[in-house]
Structures are given as C-alpha cells and as structure tokens.
C-alpha cells in the first residue's frame, strides 16, 4: 500500500482537551454569570423561598398577577415605543454621518470618535439633570420627545461603533466611485450598495441600542417619570411592593430582550449574503 503523502501545512489531528484548571475557571465564570439570572427565574415561580435552600413550592401565580397589573400593557408598550424610536433615530443619524465622514470628511473622524466616547464619560444622572435644566420649556419639558432625544445621545456609542467598524471593513471609496461611474446618485449608493454591505454592523448596533434602551431606568425616571412610564420603572416600583412579581417582570423583560435579539439576528441572516470579498480591504 502506498503511503499517504505528508502534506505541508496539515495539522496533526489532535483534539486539545481542557485541563482541570481550565474547567474550574469556566465553571466559576458560568456560575458567576448565570446565578443571578437563574435565581431570578426560580424566584419568579417560587411560593416561598426564604427559609430553605430550594423553594418550598412552585407556582405561576406571580406571572398572572404581573400581567394583570394595571400598568403592565401600557409600560410595555411605552418601552417598545421608546426603544424602537431610539433605534430609528439612531440609524437615521448615525449611518449617513458615518458614511459622510468616511468618504468626504475624513479629517473629522478623530473628532467623531472622541464625541462618541463622551456619553460613557458623563454620569447618567448628570446628563439627566442638565437636560432637565436646559429643556425646561413646553412642549419639550418632561415630554417623551425629550426622553427619546436623551436616550439617543446616551445609546449613540452602541450604534456608532459597530456601524463605523463595518464601514471600515469595506472599501467604501472604491465602491462609492464604482456606483457613481454607473450613474447612481447618493441615495441609490447608500440604499443599494453601502447599507447592504454594512448590514452586520447596523444589526448589531440596533440590537445593542434596543436592549440598552429597553432596560434604561435613570434617564426615564428623572426626565419624564410617571408621565411616560416604561417597563423598568414599573419593575423598580414593584421591587418595593412584591419581590416575586418584580422577579416575574424581570423574566418577562429578559425574554423580550432575547426574543428581540433572535428576531433581529434572524432578519439579518435573511437579508445577508456571503460577504467575504476582495473589495474588502
């Protein structure tokens, strides 16, 4: 029998098994990350859980009571409106800006990069109080529009980073020029070529913004309070009334965030096509 040629570059077929230490480390990490979530889930279905290691019994009663809460639907709706509106405004603001800065105004990119870190540097409470003072006139004062504006600023880095990285990954100048030489105007260039090619960045940005805003508490509470009650406000309110109901609100909130993620990722995989390409520099 002929011997198989020893191919250059082929790796020895060896499965690397994690060592004892690695397993321990991974286990600790998972425990640390999952414990609060799992506990919340269990607490939301526990009848009583303060005298024993495991709950004394299980029930879905708290979910029923949570759903029957008078503000349940309206706060959920408000949170959706706020998150969706923020994602939309962010997209409309960020995508053309990033495109513009990368193609026509390259010198402004460092400035934009710094601007996009600022929301991380300003404490949310400070931002909220400053906005309340500046926009203290009707109809802006205490309105949902002020809130949307504020969370757009607050969540901007989450949209900017992924979109900017995606734009950097494609050869935006040449693609733009190719479109122009084929007779496309700026809207056609953006909609037909640039946006489809940075879809991955747009989707992950939208996902991050959606989940951040859906769980946003400080700005909402300080800027609009009870005038535009969102789900996190209801949740916090119930931590003082009934811990079990608050836990079931948390679980509902988690579930919505996860469903939204799956939905956005699914939508992305539908629209996206294989995109390894030479024009990516």
């Amino acid at each position, binding site marked *: 029998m002929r011997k198989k040629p020893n191919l250059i570059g082929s790796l020895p077929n060896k499965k690397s098994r994690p060592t004892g230490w690695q397993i321990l480390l991974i286990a600790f990490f998972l425990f640390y990350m999952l414990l609060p979530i799992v506990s919340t889930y269990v607490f939301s279905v526990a009848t009583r859980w303060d005298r024993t290691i495991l709950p004394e019994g299980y029930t879905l009663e708290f979910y029923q009571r949570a759903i029957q809460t008078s503000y349940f639907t309206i706060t959920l709706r408000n949170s959706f409106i706020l998150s969706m509106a923020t994602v939309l405004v962010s997209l409309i603001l960020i995508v053309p800006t990033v495109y513009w800065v990368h193609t026509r105004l390259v010198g402004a990119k460092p400035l934009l990069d710094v601007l996009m870190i600022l929301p991380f540097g300003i404490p949310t409470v400070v931002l909220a109080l400053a906005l309340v003072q500046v926009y203290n006139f009707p109809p802006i004062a205490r309105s949902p529009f002020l809130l949307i504006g504020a969370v757009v600023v607050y969540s901007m880095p989450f949209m900017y980073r992924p979109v900017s990285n995606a734009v950097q990954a494609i050869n935006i100048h*040449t693609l733009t*020029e190719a479109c*122009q*030489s084929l007779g*496309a105007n700026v809207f056609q260039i953006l909609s*037909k070529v640039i946006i489809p090619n940075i879809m991955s960045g747009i989707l992950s940005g939208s996902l991050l913004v959606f989940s951040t805003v859906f769980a946003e508490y400080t700005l909402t509470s300080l800027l609009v309070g009870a005038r535009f009650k969102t789900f996190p406000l209801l949740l916090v309110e119930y931590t003082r009334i009934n811990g079990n109901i608050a836990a079931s609100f948390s679980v509902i909130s988690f579930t919505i965030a996860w469903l939204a993620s799956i939905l956005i990722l699914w939508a992305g995989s539908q629209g996206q096509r294989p995109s390894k*390409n*030479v*024009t990516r520099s």
Partner: protein
Amino acid sequence: MAYLELKNVSKSFSNVTVVQDFNLEIEKGSLVSFLGPSGCGKTTTLRMIAGFEKLDSGTIKLGDREITTVPPNRRDIGMVFQAYALFPNMTVRENIAFGLRMKKAPKQEIEKRVNEVLDMVRLQDTAKRFPHQLSGGQQQRIALARALAVQPCVLLLDEPLSALDAEVRVVLRGEIRRIQSELAITTVYVTHDQEEALSISDKVVVMNKGIIVQVGTPEEIYRAPKTRFVATFIGTANQFYGEVSGKDTVTCKNIKLSVDGLKEFNEGQQVVVLVRPENIQVQSEHHNRRNWNAIPGTIETITFHGAVTRLGVNANGQRVVADITVGNTQPVSLNQTIWLSFPPDGCQVMAVTE
C-alpha cells in the same frame, strides 16, 4: 477630430502640484495609455476625467459637451478599478445590471444586455455567483463587463491588471484590447507597466512629475524617445556620456563612438549616447565592419531571461548591457573578453540638459 479633450488641466493637493498644464486630444475609438512611475499624476488625471477629482484649472470636453464640472454619475464614463470594486452583496448578474437599473432600462433590455456583455467577457456560466466565488481575473472581467453594460462614451481603466498574476495579466490585456477594438470604444488606460502600455495602445502618453513627457505610438516612444527619461523608463538603454568631437563622433572617456544624427549638435557639446541592448552584437573576436562601433569588454554578469540572455559587460570602466539570443551565439562565460559592436544608426544622441 478629438473626442476627448483635456485643455490646460492642472491639479495640486495641499500645495504639491500633481498634474501641471496637461493638454491632450484623444481620438474617438482609440486606446490611449497613461504611462509613468508612481506619483507621476496619471491616476489623478484619469480621476479628473471620471469626475472623482475637481480640476484646479483647465477644461475637459467630451464630444461637444464640456464636462469639467459635471458630476461623475452624469458623465457617461465607465470605469474599471484596480481593486475590481464589484458589489459584494450582489451576484455577477446583479452587478452587471446595476448601471442599467440606475438608468431605469426595461427589464427585458437589461436581461439581453447582461447576456451580451457576459458573452463578450466569456463568463456566461458565472452569472449566478457572488464576486467572492470568482478568481481575481474573473472578477476583473466582470468589472469590465459591468462598466461596458451601460455603453459609456468613454472607458477608463485604472491599473486594472496590477493585482493579478503575471500569466493572467497577459491574457487579460489581450482580452481588453480585443473587446476595445470590437466595440471601438474610446479608452484611457493607466499603467506603470511599460510592456502593458506598449502592447495594447494606439497611443502612449508618457508622464513624469505631473507633466506629459512624450505622446506617440508605441513604436515612436520606443524607437525615438524624446528624453533620457523616456528612453530609460521604456525598455533599457545604455548611456554613454561624452562630448561631440567631430561631425559624426562622440568621445566618451576613452571610447570613441561613431553616431548618426549629430547635425543639431555643436562640437564640444556635452551629450549622452543611448544604445538599446538588442542593438548591440556580441562577438568573441573583433570583426571589422564599416563604420560600426566596436568596444572590447569583459563579461561581469550573465542573466538568463528565456528568449534572450542579458550580459553585463565592463567596457573600459563603462557598464554596458547587451542581449544575445540563445542558440545564435557561441556559449559565453563570466570574465570572458568579448567585443561589443553596434551600428551608428543604432545610437541616439541627446543633449545633457535635464
């Protein structure tokens, strides 16, 4: 009659002049190459024709239209880029149809036209594939098909073959020329590869430091370079520096050369004599031929190039390269003493002023 006309075109980037007073007329249906080293302004000039760069001064006319300030998407000029620039999110068919869709052409016409250009570049079977599933050469053919699909007035090619393998480059440049002649489309081709420029162009525009050095047919450029830059940039040329010492002689150090075309020069004037390596014959002994120059020398290097072998010869301290055809000459060896001979009409004399 000029079809594409550039008049007094200048361009500088932050005080560095990239293109200076560029004047050129390009005839309808011809293929003109811009040739020069990197940074000579050839690509900038092409981009000004395409509309991607604004002119500092001057005008560009296409047919009867002045297009100096027309935006690129309304110039009717097709472009092929070095980086292919196919749209990664679209199939080959969609890529080619893009320009026609922008023009809002009827569906059937798009279908028909896409098939036509796919036939032209001989890649019918790739229509449903995505760009990343094609080789570099195939991608560039599709890019060419995409530019041609809209039937532009002028086709611009910006170093289209630079990113490809040597073999693919030669095949594809032949294809480009074939398609260009078939369609008789006015084409401007930018390259830094002199062989590419000479082999496919009707006219070559040699550029250096932002100015046109010489315009001519490939033969003119090669056989009668106007400056030392052209002579040395296009092909190889031996350079003998010396002074005019008679009505047909130039003395270079201790070598006396008989040359043609000395009428324009005065005795004592500093000149350089240029001799192409292929004009030099290499012999093992001194043969007396009427008027021919004969210089003895020692072989210092032998480089095999396939069809020819290039010898580096030390002739009295002057380095001379000469090409010999394998099989036509006796075998040579290093340090061998040989005679280099070349006729007076194989020499070109230029004044040393540059």
